[in-house]
């Protein structure tokens, strides 16, 4: 017996099984099942709880396998170029979305006026394969204006930012609302979170002075809770800080703009001692001197990284164009009013 011929027979049988399986996987009935499962998954999924992503991932994986098999084997799809392009684009969208989820980053940060972003986020969620380059995305908040309409309804936000580009040149831009700052793929958006930021200088007796801001709770949402407790750097000393002013900054009866009050007092409580500070005032403490420098504003940002965005957009446009093309051809064969 010729062994090589026998081997070929075995591998042919294997090939035959594989082809049969591929055909089964390509079943359009499976597509219907996949759509039902995906719909159920989408209804059951609770994004707020951050759980149950598998409810979407599992049916999508089945759908992607079904779709890939159909693209390889289904005669109808293969013979109609537009239909083929549509389904390929659909597969690309699923794969890109998956790649995006594995590598994305979403986070929040706050910067006082004049402060530069150091790469530290207050809250962050990221895909398991995200390789952070955030430390390269350095920019500083150069101040902002937010207009309010009657009834204290927020209108446009304009935030000046500054950064140094790759060639070492300084760049400036105004971002806000729909316009993010994009640095190294990270998109920084202003958020509705913003407020007052007293700036302090802490001069310990042993060590170098440090300047820092205390970002009070978001304004005007927490208008009546403009206080915060924080610790002096590298000490156990807790400092309670409250901002007081009488002025109506955002008048419900007319348009206005978020700005610093023309007069304010900063109440600072350290242990039993209560101080009312004006800008420039100092408090002598056992470990050093705390100076209240001035009142400033902070801005809250969200940062989003997803390299797939332009590819996803392209795949979506391709999908919808191919879909329209396919049906245009199909319907053109017979008039609409036949």
């Amino acid at each position, binding site marked *: 017996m010729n062994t090589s011929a026998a081997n070929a027979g075995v591998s042919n049988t294997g090939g035959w099984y594989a082809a049969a399986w591929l055909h089964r996987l390509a079943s359009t009935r499976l597509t219907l099942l996949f759509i039902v499962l995906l719909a159920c998954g989408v209804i059951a999924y609770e994004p707020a709880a951050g759980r149950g992503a598998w409810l979407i991932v599992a049916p999508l994986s089945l759908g992607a396998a079904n779709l890939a098999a159909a693209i390889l084997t289904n005669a109808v799809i293969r013979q109609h170029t537009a239909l083929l392009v549509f389904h390929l684009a659909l597969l690309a969208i699923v794969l890109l979305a998956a790649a995006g989820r594995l590598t994305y980053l979403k986070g929040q940060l706050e910067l006082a006026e004049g402060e530069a972003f150091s790469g530290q986020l207050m809250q962050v969620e990221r895909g398991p394969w995200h390789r952070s380059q955030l430390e390269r995305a350095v920019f500083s908040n150069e101040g902002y204006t937010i207009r309010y309409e009657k009834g204290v309804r927020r209108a446009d936000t304009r935030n000046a930012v500054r950064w140094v580009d790759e060639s070492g040149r300084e760049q400036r831009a105004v971002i806000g609302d*729909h316009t993010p700052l994009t640095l190294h793929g990270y998109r920084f958006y202003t958020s509705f979170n913003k407020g007052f930021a007293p700036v302090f200088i802490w001069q310990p007796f042993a060590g170098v002075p440090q300047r820092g801001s205390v970002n009070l709770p978001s304004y005007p949402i927490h208008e009546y809770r403009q206080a915060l407790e924080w610790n002096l750097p590298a000490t156990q000393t807790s400092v309670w800080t409250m901002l007081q002013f009488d002025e109506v900054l955002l008048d419900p009866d007319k348009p206005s703009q978020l700005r610093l009050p023309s007069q304010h007092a900063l109440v600072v409580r350290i242990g039993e001692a209560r101080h009312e500070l004006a800008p420039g005032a100092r408090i002598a403490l056992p470990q050093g001197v705390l100076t209240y420098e001035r009142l400033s504003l902070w801005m809250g940002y969200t940062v989003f990284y997803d390299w797939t965005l332009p590819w996803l957009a392209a795949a979506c446009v391709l999908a919808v164009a191919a879909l329209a093309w396919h*049906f245009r051809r199909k319907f053109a064969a017979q008039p609409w009013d036949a």
Partner: protein
Amino acid sequence: MTIELQLLWGALALYTLAGSTAIGGTVLARRVERSVLALIVIGLVVHAVSIGLRWERVGHGPFITMFEILSSNVWSLLLIFALAYWRVPAVRPAAAVVMPILFVMMGWMLVTSPGDGHYPPTYRTVWLYIHVFFGKVFLGAVLVAVGIAGLILLRRAGFGVQRLARLPDSARLENLAFRFMILGFVFETLMLIAGAVWAQDAWGRYWAWDPLETWAFLTWLTLAFFVHARATFRLQPHHSALFIMGVFVLAFLTFFGVPFVSTAPHKGAV
């Protein structure tokens, strides 16, 4: 009453007259098509002036309050229906199905408050117009399909077999309804894409499964299911018609139910 509201009432009266004429024409098997179209078109013009006056007065388009959204959708749905009515004569008897649906929306509009709403900063973008335009074409195309599907179901239920006798057979009607569904499918896909682009700009994420996104996606999935079921099994015309009704109900709830029931941040306020 302001002129803006007077014009609105006038338009609604014209639509009601058009609808009643269409229904009467179907029941009595009379040819009333030109009058129906004329009444709808005059109504659309009057309604457009009313919407324009309000736009001018409040400084933004009809996108915010339920009253505005219902008003602008009654207008755009009727515009799309009138276009189909004009260009595709087989669609005309569907007016007897479509107009009552619009009556419900008009009635609902009349009990909502016509007061002003707040126009959030996230709405100040061209994507709003693109997204809304696609959405309106989507819903309008599905409504036309619903009208035709209604005729198929009426015929199947034995209503006015003679009155509907002049129509093409149900299989041909189904094919026509399917075409409008596909038009809707293409525009719904465009609406979802435009919405995702807008969401990326406005909220820094393109998709987050908020209730509106979820239900819009479910509507899209239902349509995909319909397309595939139709290609996989030889669906009877009345089965297709039921699918079409189902898609419309989902789309209707997504447009007019979810944003006003959920407190999720899709309205972009704060």
